[in-house]
């Protein structure tokens, strides 16, 4: 599988997990990000993810490669959803296989943290009261206006 990919359709962690199998692996760690029904005090009803895929794919691949090098794991991959998601849907999956568990956990954590901060993916939340907003973009748009 590709080290980093987007999917328009629901994620299938079992198939990804099988791809990380390696005879030298003593373990596998995964992280699944799920859509929750609340964020910062607002009741959330659904989400939309949008990505600048040409750059996001490159940056995502760089992150996975960094994790493999940095933590010495065997295989790693990340798949992220785009499109419309409901509560409980799987938004992102990260998997790592390695010889020992410590580096699998560490690499998994590194990948999800870096993906959140570096990859051009945006999340629009729709709220129970009918409002919607782009996460991290709405409040910073009014800096020190006079």
């Amino acid at each position: 599988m590709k080290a980093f990919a987007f999917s328009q359709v629901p994620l299938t962690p079992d198939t990804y997990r099988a791809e990380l199998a390696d005879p030298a692996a003593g373990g596998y760690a995964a992280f699944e990000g799920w859509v929750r029904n609340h964020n910062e005090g607002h009741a959330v009803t659904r989400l939309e993810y949008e990505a600048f895929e040409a750059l996001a794919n490159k940056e995502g691949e760089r992150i996975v490669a960094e994790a493999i090098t940095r933590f010495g794991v065997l295989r790693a991959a990340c798949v992220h959803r785009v499109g419309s998601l409901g509560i409980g849907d799987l938004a992102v999956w990260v998997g790592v296989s390695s010889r020992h568990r410590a580096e699998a956990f560490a690499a998994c954590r590194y990948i999800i943290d870096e993906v959140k901060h570096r990859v051009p993916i945006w999340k629009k939340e729709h709220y129970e009261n009918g409002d919607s907003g782009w996460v991290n973009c709405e409040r910073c748009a009014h800096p020190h206006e006079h």
Partner: protein
Amino acid sequence: MTATLFGLVLAGGASTRMRTDKAALQYHGQPQLQWAFDLVSKVCAASFVSVRPDQRDDAARGSYPQIVDRQPGTGPIAGISAALLEHPKAAWLVLACDLPFLTERTLQHLIAHRDPHKIATAYRSAHDGLPEPLCAIWEPAARQPVLAYVASGKQCPRKFLINSDTALLDLPEPQALDNVNTVEEFGLATAALRPEGRTSKTVRIQYYAILREQAGRSEETVDTSAGTPAELYAELRQRHPFQLTSAHLKVALNSEFGDWQTPLKHGDTVVFIPPVAGG
């Protein structure tokens, strides 16, 4: 008798919005203070730079004849009142140093239409019709009323001129007094002033997320004279209701992270990246 005209370039501002000293910015291949000083020196008998006491020896200002604020902290009126006190028989052509579009022609027009019997001669702003105090001639007769105005705790030189006997002129070049206060305005101004920056190029801009919604489209192709992504974004903000400033964004050129100051090339694809939220 008409009072001799001295020049005063105001360079005592804090440049808060620019976050860098406006006197040192370069629009014309030299520090803006030098450019403004040279311009005013062409049309005045003697010229000075207005500084705060703590700026007397700074590198950008130390080499000019100076007039030091006597009541620092009250803005440009401190510089104007200090000049009127220092040379009470002179009239003062007062000039802000953040006017990169100013021309000698606009100054000559002001001088030619000066009314020495008024308190001041000023241009009407091209934007709101109110007097522009920082490209204006202040007569010796302004001294007492300015001192009284400052003594009463007021600081706004524009309001002073509004409430004084001021001769008002229309600008011969409407954009001549457009001032530059922010990094984005600086980008636009340098692009407009740079001969090679005027070269038009075609670039494609792709919009995502909040910018896509605010632009009302996911991409557009524009002919622009913007020299860098910073200048391009400033230009696009004039056309689209983008609320995010460049400080909030990253930029990508041809599907790779880029720099705001990278020269734009014909045919580039540019993406402005709002704060991300994956995961």
